[in-house]
């Protein structure tokens, strides 16, 4: 990369993009660059670094809303919320450990660009479910805003939500407004040890389908549980985890309800407060695959299909896997040279469909292999037309989501 531009205002972002569009000079759009190793590598002579566009512009705890410039560190936002006992309910994953850099590095713009979510996805959704408004500069070099600061809003198309997860390929967000939530008074994790994948799926399905309001459900096979216990978590053997959050009396009550409901065998134990939080952080952040050199996939399927998917890929090639989102999210680590893209995607199709993203692999592989799930023709053509309407000269993160 030869040149980095660091705009300090939306107007400067607009100037930079206008120039790029006029000269057809592609830009790599960056916050702190913490997710540069995600997606297809971008070839661009110039970087647009948004980290100088930083600061919380508005935070009204009683209104459950926060608004910040796109380059604001996520850690700064989380600290501000924490001081008022609030949080981002969708609990965004921190890719630091998995991608081999320090945690807490990302910006709010990057969080939106990647549509981050965490283990609580099932109950609270992803970043896309919490964005209320956005100001951005399109690839045409025009400033536009969409949405607002209130939750109920159908005034015009929902561009903030649409742009969430577009990896900076449509527009450069300059300001983002999010819904926030009171932090639960307390939490605990219901741990069942010793279930096989089929029993675990049954247990998670029963728990999620009950009125116990489980906010996250994951199953770790013995070898993954062993890695996490080496990180200090109290696990032994396969572990099925059910997270409960809320007012203290309610958590205790629901814990007891789960115990009565889940007569599945295995032994039940309970992780309290900080131990529970710490374990879920590592489950969320895929800590089990940190520091290895395997290729890592993130696979989204129907929750009941997760265990079946894992069984299929493990029968086909050497890999390790565990599931979050009650089976709906599979983290898969593939050893060897070949990331097994075709086999992974065939297995996704075989269990009823979904998508697979190659999240960790060396850059040449992420250029050669489709990082994101390939789309059927009509949908791919529509996506290309949307891209062209925002960024006709293709100057924003060209190729990031595919060639």
């Amino acid at each position: 990369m030869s040149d980095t531009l660091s705009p300090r205002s939306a107007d400067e972002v607009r100037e930079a993009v206008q120039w790029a569009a006029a000269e057809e000079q592609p830009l790599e759009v960056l916050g702190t660059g913490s997710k540069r190793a995600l997606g297809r590598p971008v070839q661009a002579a110039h970087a647009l670094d948004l980290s100088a566009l930083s600061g919380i512009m508005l935070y009204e705890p009683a209104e459950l809303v926060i608004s910040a410039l796109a380059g604001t560190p996520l850690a700064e936002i989380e600290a501000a919320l924490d001081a008022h006992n609030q949080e981002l309910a969708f609990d965004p994953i921190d890719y630091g450990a998995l991608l081999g850099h320090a945690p807490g590095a990302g910006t709010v713009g990057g969080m939106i660009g990647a549509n981050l979510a965490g283990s609580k996805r099932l109950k609270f959704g992803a970043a896309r479910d919490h964005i209320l408004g956005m100001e951005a500069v399109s690839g045409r070099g025009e400033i536009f805003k969409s949405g607002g600061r209130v939750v109920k809003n159908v005034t015009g198309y929902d561009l903030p939500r649409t742009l969430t997860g577009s990896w900076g390929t449509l527009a450069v967000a300059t300001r983002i407004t999010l819904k926030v939530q009171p932090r639960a008074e307390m939490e605990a994790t219901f741990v069942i040890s010793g279930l096989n994948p089929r029993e675990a799926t049954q247990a998670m399905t029963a728990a999620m389908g009950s009125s116990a309001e489980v906010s996250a459900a994951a199953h770790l096979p013995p070898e993954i549980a062993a890695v996490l216990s080496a990180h200090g978590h109290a696990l032994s053997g396969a572990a099925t985890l059910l997270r409960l959050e809320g007012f203290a009396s309610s958590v205790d009550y629901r814990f007891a309800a789960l115990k009565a409901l889940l007569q599945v065998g295995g032994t039940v134990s309970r992780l309290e407060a900080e131990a529970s939080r710490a374990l879920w952080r590592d489950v969320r952040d895929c800590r089990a695959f940190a520091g290895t050199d395997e290729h890592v996939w993130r696979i989204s399927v129907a929750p009941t299909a997760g265990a079946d998917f894992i069984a299929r890929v493990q029968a086909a090639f050497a890999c390790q896997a565990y599931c979050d989102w009650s089976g709906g999210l599979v983290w898969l680590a593939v050893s060897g040279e070949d990331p097994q893209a075709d086999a992974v995607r065939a297995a996704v199709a075989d269990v009823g469909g979904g998508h697979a993203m190659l999240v960790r692999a060396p850059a040449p592989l992420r250029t050669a292999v489709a990082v994101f799930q390939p789309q059927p023709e009509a949908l791919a053509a529509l996506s290309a037309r949307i891209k062209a309407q925002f960024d006709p000269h293709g100057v924003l993160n060209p190729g990031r989501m595919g060639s």
Partner: protein
Amino acid sequence: MSGIVMPRPDDEVLARRGEIVAALKRLVPGEGVIDAAVEMRAYESDALTAYRQLPLVVVLPETVEQVSAVLRYCHENSVKVVPRGAGTSLSGGALPVGDGVLLSMMKFNQVLDIDPANRAAVVQPGVTNLGITRAVEHLGFYYAPDPSSQIACSIGGNIAENSGGVHCLKYGLTTNNVLGLEMVLVTGEVIRLGGKHLDAEGYDILALMTGSEGLLGVVTEVTVRILQKPETARAALIGFPTSEDGGQCVADIIGAGIIPGGMEMMDELAINAAEDFVNAGYPRDAGALLIVELDGPEAEVDYLLGEIEAIARRNKASSLRVSTSEEERNTFWAGRKAAFPAVGRISPDYLCMDGTIPRKALPEVLTRMRALGETHGLRCANVFHAGDGNLHPLILYDANQPGQLEAAEAFGADILKLCVEFDGVLTGEHGVGIEKRDLMPEMFTEDDLKQQQRVKCAFDPKQLLNPGKVFPVLHRCAELGRMHVHKGQLPFPDIPRF
């Protein structure tokens, strides 16, 4: 008819009517095409009844193949298409155009798949909102977003309007509860988005479709998230001397970290109209009434009701009742849920507005609204989704009195401008449609609106789907696509570079 002007019908298309009807009858055989004026009357308006227009022809397809064939034909022959669900839109979203097909989706009325293990249901778009809950409740599940029109409105219409309901404060809007769609593009191409898995694999077109008011495609199948019914639900009915006190109580409840299942407020006029209509036992002398519903495990509900009672007392609550039975809880809600028809009884006509404001602005906005009512010489009853600041001022007028509809519309426009002035928005859940179309520049710049319209161009470059809605000024896609570039020497000397 009043101030809102629809695009002039195309004489050339009107002249081809016979040929178009014949072609459509070949594509949708049997009784799927209605072309007699008397039978088309049923489709001439939606719930914004001040506006009526007979369509060119009504088509009721039954299969995706038929929808695809109709759209392909219309696209090739440059015929406009207005999709329609149950016709309960309050913003004129389903108002026909005289030179276009009205495409009713109400024959798509099947529940296709109930999957409790994945907490999902797959339904056709003409299934009513309540129909989904009815189909899954034997398994202990329900579909959370619950617009007051839920008996009648279709899930397809809910997606088009991103509809909300009293339970959306805790459980989210339509957009947070839809997992997948099948839709037909104006070209007739069929695409599928999402499914029982989570998150989009590319651009989140599902999010874009939700709230797109029938302008981007026709939805033919919907996968929704269903939830297990909470163990218990109880409601508190709390009266306050003034709306200011009620508003402060709402802020304090949320400030205490409590997100109730629902939290609704009514003003004095609405309280009395509802009480006259359903005898729910509302305190007639209260200046504001708050209904707060807590749901979840019994222990939690009891605990939180205690907290809320204390907060209400601190905010000068003049009366407080907590439901002790399911029957009583339903009675508490009956008045609120029937507020629109109740107001309909005290006035020949009413207009329902739908702005959203930051909650804290409530007292000031209400005061200003009363002053506006005096200026326009009209009364206004207020019901609102207090938890999320979504207002429904009901403007009372009499269409038979010359000038009253115009006065009501002017009052409504002033209310919405007031919402925008306080950092709010024109519409929270009813959609822009034709009703708020011309107010869009109050909230958006020309660049904002042009970028929105470019999105439309990616789906429908000939602008045939639901024309005349949402956008005040129509631009041709070719014009929107043009870019004025200034080639230059090294620019922006001021931006730091490394």
